[in-house]
């Protein structure tokens, strides 16, 4: 098909889709309306289990099984990247020479790295209280490590980030989530049911039964997954060269 015919097809199909979408939008409940039956029930259930952040309660208690599905997608995507971006037979590793970075940039990276790591951990730890949680905090902590690459050089990053350890951490935290789920079954409840631990005092770090534990498992899983992912991309972009032997 030539590009012109393809463009016409896109315009035709897109136009039809646009008309249907606009028609659907006009029949949706008005934006900002007061009727949210599921939301109201979710808030009540979260408060009954002493969880201050209702979103964390939905993610790690009321719909914890869905979060397991999300975690599986994450795990599979990382596995796919690792397989796709492995070193091929006709490639060799060529460590890049250390690069020159302006002194203020280097200093900034070294100062902000620990701050960003602590912020990531803070976001994970307060997941069931204030906005935040394992998903967000994990990404922040993993991104923070890569300030070492941005502010210093690749060799420095490799020293503070042993990829094998993070691969093991990824698998361990994914299985920790499953183990916590099965612990619910063994205790006589259902898979991932939040009946294992006491609910604790409202608005404290240990409140919410198993929610903080599942949250921590997801935080570790996301952080390790992102580190492994970026490590593969950095390997390809910086280190792996075409042609066998050097």
């Amino acid at each position, binding site marked *: 098909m030539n590009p012109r015919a393809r463009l016409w097809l896109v315009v035709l199909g897109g136009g039809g889709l646009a008309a249907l979408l606009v028609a659907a939008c*006009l029949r949706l409940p008005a934006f900002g309306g007061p009727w949210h039956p599921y*939301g109201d029930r979710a808030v009540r259930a979260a408060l009954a289990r002493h969880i201050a952040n209702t979103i964390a309660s939905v993610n790690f208690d009321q719909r914890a099984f869905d*979060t397991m599905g999300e975690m599986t997608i*994450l795990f599979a995507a990382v596995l796919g990247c690792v397989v796709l971006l492995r070193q091929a037979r006709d490639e060799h590793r060529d460590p890049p020479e250390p690069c020159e970075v302006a002194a203020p940039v280097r200093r900034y990276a070294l100062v902000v790295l620990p701050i960003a790591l602590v912020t990531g951990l803070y976001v994970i730890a307060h997941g069931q209280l204030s906005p935040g949680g394992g998903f967000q905090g994990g990404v922040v902590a993993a991104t923070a490590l890569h300030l070492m690459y941005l502010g210093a050089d690749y060799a420095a990053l490799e020293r503070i980030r042993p990829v094998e350890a993070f691969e093991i951490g990824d698998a361990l935290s994914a299985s920790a989530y499953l183990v916590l789920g099965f612990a619910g079954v063994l205790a006589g409840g259902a898979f991932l049911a939040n009946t294992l631990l006491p609910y604790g005092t409202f608005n404290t770090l240990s409140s919410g039964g198993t929610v903080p534990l599942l949250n921590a498992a997801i935080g570790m899983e996301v952080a390790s997954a992102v580190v492994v992912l970026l490590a593969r991309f950095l390997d390809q972009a910086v280190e792996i060269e075409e042609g066998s032997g050097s």
Partner: protein
Amino acid sequence: MGSESAVTAVTHVLPYLVAAYVFLVGCYGLATSRNLIHAVGCLAVCQSATYVLLLAVGYRDGGTAPVFSDIRPGSRPVVDPVVQALTLTDVVVGATVTALLLALTVQIAKRHGTVDPDELRELRG
């Protein structure tokens, strides 16, 4: 009076229309892209349309976030937490899917030496 009701009518559907527009624009970019990395970026734009739609459905006028670390429960109306939880996981998982597609693109570039979908089709056919 008439113009005022027209304004409220627009604000009542505007978020949905923006979501539909963002989705369609992303699709257009995907269909006409000449570079696979650009296409992955367009897919990210399509994904963001779903976030906008979900959160728009859950919004309540005058509501605030259902997070009770700094307000007393029941003191203010809150928005729908269920759609927020769906979107929250979607954002992070969407990013890893983007990474998977970029990995595929890098692999295609290695195998075929190009990331232009049209040139790739010629190589095969």
